[in-house]
């Protein structure tokens, strides 16, 4: 079986969310399962009513760089990836606790809250990408 693409998505900046969504969509299109764990600021970016409205960029971004230069916003890229492939998005239970959030306050793109062991169980022996 194809090993999954496992991503720990920590950053909540638009550019890094876009990069993660592109990787997830590419893997899903190629028939590879995708396993995403949202932690900290990424979790905050998935809040209902808040999702897709951020304009912050990573600190390494050039001043004045466009927040989202590509034609498809990262939220839509992720939605399409979930429609077309096997993409699971979990909210890290520890980060939810830290941010005083409940999984019900997150966008429907997020499948569930989960612990780190569930994430590793799905990741198997495959590599993990931290964004």
């Amino acid at each position, binding site marked *: 079986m194809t090993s999954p693409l496992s991503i720990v998505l920590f950053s909540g900046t638009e550019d890094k969310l876009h990069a993660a969504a592109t990787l997830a969509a590419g893997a899903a299109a190629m028939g590879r399962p995708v396993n995403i764990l949202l932690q900290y600021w990424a979790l905050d970016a998935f809040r209902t009513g808040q999702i897709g409205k951020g304009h912050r960029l990573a600190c390494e971004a050039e001043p004045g760089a466009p927040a989202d*230069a590509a*034609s498809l916003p990262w939220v839509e890229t992720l939605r399409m990836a979930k429609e077309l492939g096997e993409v699971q998005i979990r909210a890290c239970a520890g980060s939810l606790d830290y941010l005083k959030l409940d999984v019900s306050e997150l966008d429907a793109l997020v499948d569930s809250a989960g612990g780190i062991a569930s994430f590793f169980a799905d990741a198997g022996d495959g590599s993990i990408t931290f964004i």
Partner: protein
Amino acid sequence: MNAVATPDLDTITAEKIVDARGAACPGPLLEAKKGMATVALGSVIELWSTDPITKTDIAAWSAKVGHEFLGAVEADGYDRVFIRRGK
């Protein structure tokens, strides 16, 4: 192997045209996958894309997932990419 215009491609009638012009990567790839699911096995889809990397990417995708990349021809400011559904 890519972007080779052959008379064969010009004679192919696609079952479905997927217009992904204006979309950047991975948009055309996702549109192709979505469109492919709507045609029968053995049918051909024709993907339109203004992103020059699409034809290379679609060739790689086709090889990986079991479709047949037939090639691409240049049109007026975009590429017409032909793929036959293989699975």
